[in-house]
């Protein structure tokens, strides 16, 4: 799918510099986008990727440097200006109006009018259906956006961008909340638009996507341009090395951990609220159980039910003791450490500092008769910042200013510190850059080594294959099959996730 024949230069950024008080976010960076080309912008979080894409999209004004479109220098004063010139950005943060209809959102700011100047509702609906069909999304144009799931909302956002006749499309981690099938559809669409001459700038943490569609990658590190390299001529480990500035020998660093006795027994765990059929599975100490499945397969709901986040029925015992279901506090008391997938919405306290975000999970331990020991809190937090490698200037920094990877280390670290018997991690590396991912894999193997049973629910198949001892695959709200490390391959798991069938061993085995 990698296009070999790039067209003329559409957009060029030269010597772009941008400083924020205290730090140089971009230091004289160049970027050249050609028609009919997908350009991957890579680098760790904080490397300046987002800043650069926001400059190109007119959301930020650079301190120095020039932008050229079709060879002519111009200044983009605001995003509307960029959109008028055909530069459209889709970011992971949705920018939809939830109370309006799908159609109104797609054509926001450019609703079709009748001759009298009133909204032409009929044409709006017609155009919206056309825009949605192009993406292969089946949703009524009259549905309210708030009634749609996150994934469909993201697709509405994409439909809006594509219907704006973009010449330059910027995808800023646009796939991070999409399932595999939706991601594939989006990537197909990107390829299709590219072949029609669109220029695409793509920011993603998912390596396979970069290799699937892009033909060139610009690597940033610490706000500086490191290199612009051809894809796929540059191998993945080389690209990662350019991004992090050092070699990551073994990304997953899977260790052999001797499994102990069964510590968590799940019998017919079902959730009426979340809609999952009864699931039974056991996990041993030291074991890492991966849970795979497509979006909507029930894997995320399974994690929520175990963590007490939603009402549930069935029987769960931890170290022989029954857990009261449907109550997070009881789950914690029973030794279950649950980390939700929605970091911003359900895990961090965005307006509070690092210290309080750690301590949120330690209130029982830190307080005596209702009083919190701030001295002990400060000691514990400093130790945890060090132990979990949180990059920060101190514990009083607002958590919302940290990178996704650092936020996630805090969320995982505070849960690990409680030394739970069972860890239930829902998408633990979502929106986390490569360097931090590798550290998170190390963290959760450390926890397994110390005797925890670890359940990792993830939409990223490579990571499940990389770290799990056993994989359970969800399909249509039930646990369809289990595979041991000896028998799982990407092919087998992916097949099961799509069909629910436990296929016979692939014939190619020796």
């Amino acid at each position, binding site marked *: 799918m990698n296009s070999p024949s790039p067209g003329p230069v559409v957009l060029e950024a030269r010597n772009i510099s941008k*400083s*924020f*008080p*205290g*730090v140089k*976010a971009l230091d004289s960076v160049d970027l050249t986008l050609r028609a009919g080309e997908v350009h991957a912008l890579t680098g760790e979080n*904080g490397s300046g990727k987002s800043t650069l894409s926001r400059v190109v999209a007119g959301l930020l004004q650079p301190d120095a440097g020039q932008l050229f479109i079709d060879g002519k220098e111009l200044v983009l004063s605001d995003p509307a200006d960029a959109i008028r010139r055909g530069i459209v950005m889709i970011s992971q943060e949705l920018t939809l109006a939830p109370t309006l209809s799908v159609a109104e959102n797609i054509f926001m700011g450019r609703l079709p009018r009748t001759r009298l100047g009133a909204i032409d509702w009929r044409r709006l609906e017609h155009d919206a259906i056309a825009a949605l069909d192009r993406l292969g999304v089946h949703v009524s144009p009259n549905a309210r956006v708030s009634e749609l799931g996150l994934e469909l909302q993201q697709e509405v956002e994409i439909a809006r961008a594509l219907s704006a006749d973009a010449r330059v499309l910027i995808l800023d981690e646009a796939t991070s909340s999409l399932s595999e099938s939706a991601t594939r559809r989006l990537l197909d669409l990107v390829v299709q638009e590219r072949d029609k001459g669109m220029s695409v700038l793509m920011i993603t943490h998912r390596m396979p996507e970069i290799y699937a569609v892009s033909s060139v990658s610009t690597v940033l590190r610490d706000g500086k341009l490191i290199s612009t390299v051809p894809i796929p001529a540059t191998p993945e480990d080389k690209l990662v090395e350019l991004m992090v500035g050092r070699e990551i020998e073994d990304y997953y660093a899977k260790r052999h951990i001797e499994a102990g006795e069964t510590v968590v027994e799940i019998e017919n765990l079902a959730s009426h609220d979340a809609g999952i059929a009864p699931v039974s599975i056991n996990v041993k100490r030291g074991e890492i159980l991966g849970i795979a499945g497509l979006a909507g397969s029930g894997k995320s709901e399974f994690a929520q039910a175990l*963590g*007490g*986040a939603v009402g549930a029925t069935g029987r769960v015992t931890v170290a022989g003791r029954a857990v009261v279901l449907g109550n*997070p*506090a009881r789950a*914690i*008391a029973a030794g279950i450490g*649950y980390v*939700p997938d929605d970091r911003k*919405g*359900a*895990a*961090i*306290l*965005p*307006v*509070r500092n690092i210290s*309080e975000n750690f*301590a*949120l*999970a330690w*209130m*029982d331990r*830190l*307080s005596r008769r*209702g*009083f*919190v020991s*701030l001295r002990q809190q400060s000691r514990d937090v*400093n*130790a945890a*910042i*060090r*132990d979990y*490698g949180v*990059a*920060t*200037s*101190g*514990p009083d*920094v*607002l958590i*919302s*200013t*940290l*990178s996704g990877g*650092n936020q996630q280390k805090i969320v995982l670290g505070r849960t690990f510190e409680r030394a739970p018997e069972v860890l239930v991690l829902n998408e633990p590396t979502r929106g986390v850059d490569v360097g931090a991912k590798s*550290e998170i894999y190390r963290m959760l193997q450390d926890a397994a080594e110390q005797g925890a049973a670890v359940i990792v629910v993830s939409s990223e198949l490579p990571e499940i294959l990389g770290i799990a001892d056993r994989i359970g695959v969800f399909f249509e709200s039930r646990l369809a099959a289990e595979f041991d490390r000896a028998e799982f391959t990407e092919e087998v798991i992916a097949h099961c996730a799509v069909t629910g069938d436990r296929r016979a061993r692939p014939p190619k085995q020796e």
Partner: protein
Amino acid sequence: MTDITQTPPRHRKPSAAATLLQSRYAGALVSLIVISIFLYLYQPVFLTWPNLMNIVKSNSVAFILALGATFVVISGTVDLSFGSATTAAAMVFGLLLINGTPLPLAIFGALLAGGLLGAFNGYLVSYAKISFFVVTLGTLSVFQSGALIMNDGGSYSVFSQPAFKALNTFVNGNLGPVPIILIFDAVLFLIAGGVLRYTSFGRALYAIGANPEAARLNGINVRRVLFTVFVISGMTAGLASVVQVGRLTVASPEVDLNLLLTVLAAVLIGGTAMTGGEGGVLGTLIGMLFLGVVQNGLTLTGVSSFWQGTLSGGILIFSVWLGGVRGMLRSRRQAKLT
């Protein structure tokens, strides 16, 4: 990778002045100082002990309510009914006094009445899960009407009651040069600040205001904490009613709607965010002092009191805007440091 042997990150403690200037209430503090200097230059009588104590006394009802309102706003909700709850509790207090109830018991009765009204709000918000805005807007009129019903629209004059002497000492008396009510306010302030900072209840309030789902998933009983915070708000209304009756010598069923603006304005000017999870009582104290000084300045300079609403409303909008700008600058700066 991190080196395990390294010592915990040590950062220099910023100076007290720098901390103050970066805090959420910096705008209010600077304005308070500037306006005080101007007032002093224009009317030196401003900086005299009796005048300052006058400011304290005339704002103590609002200040007590503002402490409770700070708790509520930190939790991410708002109580619009505390003014009416104060009036209703005042009627209960007045009724107890005219029936010869001893003062301590009558105060207890006012507290209990306020607490029950707060519990009613709290139950509807946290257990019946009705929007706090709807609930407290509703109870704003329910409590007000309840106060009218109690004595068929009439008030209770407590001036001639035997317990009034003690009440008057509490509200208007001095201990040496210091008004007793100032000491009372200071103690309440310290308790409120201590609860917010040092107790798990206080920490739970911030957590719930910042992200209720994160709080719930980490084992905090969100409903119970929200219920409690409304009870606290009701109890501060009970306390405020005692001071109010003492100052007015009468328990009146009229609700002072200005109180609602003054109290919430003090909380917000003090940097406690309407969105929850941020702020504290020190900011509220500064916000309250600021509003009190402005009001006092109008009186001293002979400006028509009709201007007061314009000023305090304008100041409210301006200072919250200033807080937003400051927050934006701070988070940008921090984003780049990490």
